[in-house]
């Protein structure tokens, strides 16, 4: 159908696009060469600011504004590319890297030039060993071609890019935890302020951006601000790679301009292809596991930062999980909070203890079939004590599944209590076979 021109996933279908020569033949690395030879770093920062590009990692913070926070005249500076992609339901970053690594590397190199950093690190999720090798091979090709290294294209600009493999910790997607991990430590978040732009990696000014954000930069430089802003909405320009999963016919990554209704992503034959077996939508988790849930009532919401925020949820990482009416809301909340409990780094009490007690209570209610009315009050009490009191966003995210489930489907928790008392505590199967 081609609703829009693809910006990030544009060349994924070209055979061997992961090879330097093929990427170059399709106009790759040209934006970088142009920037280095004809534009100043400040020009590029201004361009990205004007484009309205927003961070695709979850918060949606304007990228150019973030770059502007760097203190003037303080060097060295570092650029970090966050490819720790661990948010449940999100899987677009590694597809970008697997298929078209040069686009990311060009984005990293271009952004490093813009913020005047001579060293950039790409922090890869530990499980992405194959993607890390793909990137390393592509980086080596870029060095060979003279686009990385010393005195690039005779401009005096030096740049080294390193790939760092994480070792399996969701918390390392949090920017300050990522920096701790990069320094070889336990990935626990740091207190902010100081913000990374002021004191980040090794205490130096650091900019950290998501893979998808950086992959947008070469296109903005190549095609210009006006072209970029012609996609998406006024406040959320450009496109977003949505990772669609769950009970849809065609799960996968789909790049859409911001503002397309949720219904279209799920139902269009080009994208989700409707619900499996035609069953009704029950729960939509629009932005990875950390996003508050939506229901079938929200299908007409446009997918952009403002509209989802107005609906009480968030666009987050763009990982859209769609669940049908066969799932039990308490069970889904239990499974998701089990994830957060497992991944809680243990630094702060509300998160460490809160996730533990949420899971313990939910386990008894949904797995063991012992649910009392007091348990429902306990769940409310636990998440209220967590909300706003956790050190970083992991704990705050853990509140979302249980809060959403209790608010949207209170009757399902009450039914657990009812069934539990009538069956005298025998286990009730809550898992539906497919």
């Amino acid at each position, binding site marked *: 159908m081609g609703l829009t021109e693809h910006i990030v996933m544009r060349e994924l279908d070209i055979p061997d696009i992961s090879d330097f020569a093929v990427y170059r033949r399709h106009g790759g690395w040209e934006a970088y060469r142009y920037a280095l030879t004809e534009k100043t770093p400040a020009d590029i920062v201004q361009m990205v600011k004007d484009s309205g590009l927003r961070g695709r990692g979850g918060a949606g913070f304007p990228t150019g504004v973030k770059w502007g926070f760097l203190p003037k005249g303080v060097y060295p500076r570092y650029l970090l590319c966050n490819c720790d992609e661990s948010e449940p339901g999100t899987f677009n970053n590694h597809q970008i890297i697997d298929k078209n690594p040069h686009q990311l590397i060009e984005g990293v190199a271009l952004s490093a030039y813009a913020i005047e950093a001579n060293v950039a690190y790409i922090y890869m999720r530990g*499980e992405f060993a194959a993607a890390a090798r793909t990137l390393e091979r592509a980086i080596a090709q870029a060095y060979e071609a003279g686009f990385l290294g010393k005195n690039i294209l005779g401009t005096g600009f030096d740049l080294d890019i390193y790939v760092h493999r994480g070792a399996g910790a969701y918390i390392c997607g949090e920017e300050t935890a990522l920096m701790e991990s990069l320094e070889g430590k336990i990935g626990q978040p740091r207190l902010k302020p100081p913000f990374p732009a002021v004191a980040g990696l090794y205490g130096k000014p650091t900019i950290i951006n998501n893979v998808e954000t950086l992959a947008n930069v070469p296109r903005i430089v190549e095609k210009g601000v006006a072209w970029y802003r012609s996609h998406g909405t006024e406040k959320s320009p450009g496109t977003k790679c949505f990772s669609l999963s769950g009970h849809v016919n065609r799960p996968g990554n789909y790049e859409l301009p911001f503002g397309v209704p949720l219904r279209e992503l799920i139902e269009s034959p080009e994208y989700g292809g409707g619900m499996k077996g035609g069953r009704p939508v029950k729960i939509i988790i629009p932005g990875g596991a950390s996003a508050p849930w939506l229901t079938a009532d929200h299908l007409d919401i446009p997918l952009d930062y403002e509209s989802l925020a107005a609906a009480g949820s968030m666009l987050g990482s763009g990982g859209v999980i769609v669940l049908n009416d066969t799932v039990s809301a308490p069970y889904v909340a239990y499974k998701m909070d089990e994830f957060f409990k497992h991944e809680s780094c243990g630094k702060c009490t509300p998160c460490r203890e809160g996730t533990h007690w949420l899971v313990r209570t939910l386990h008894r209610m949904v797995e063991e079939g012992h649910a009392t009315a007091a348990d429902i009050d306990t769940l409310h009490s636990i998440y209220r004590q967590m909300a706003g009191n956790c050190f970083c966003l992991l704990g705050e995210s853990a509140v979302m599944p249980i809060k959403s489930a209790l608010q949207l489907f209170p009757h399902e928790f009450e039914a657990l209590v009812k069934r539990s008392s009538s069956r005298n505590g025998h286990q009730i199967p809550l898992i539906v076979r497919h």
Partner: protein
Amino acid sequence: MTTPTTDIATDRNVRPVSDNRRKILEATMKRFQYQGDALIEVLHKAQELYGFLSPELLSEVAQRLRLPPSRVYGVATFYHFFSLVPQGEHSCTVCLGTACYVRGAAHLLHDLETLSGVKAGHTSSDGRFSLLTARCLGACGIAPAVVLDGEVIGHADCSDLTARIQKLLGREE
């Protein structure tokens, strides 16, 4: 932690003849100039060479990188990728993320446990097979996903998977 003995591996992985794993590990540490901030890379290498991180191996790494053993132990236990116990020769990791769960991952795991006789998170008594779980592998588009000896398999089906595991273990039926 105890002082390292002459050979840093004291488990059944020991290969006394022509064991140059230690040399490779030393070369890795040297490449990073024995800097403490390379700890995670060094542990990755150590686990790749030895299969798991024994107390002796951790102690060795701590000494060479001049880090407190507590820091090395802390990092090794914090990250899920590192294992402090030997893993089976072959491993099957079942993803239990939300997307895989709603596509039947819990049943798949249950069936695999029953068929293999190995509980999730454990290794068979002969050390040949480990059944592991993961909390979202980022393969939600091909749910349910499993990783069999490093290979990601999408739309996993129990009977197909069991056949592949049997084949790996050389127990074709």
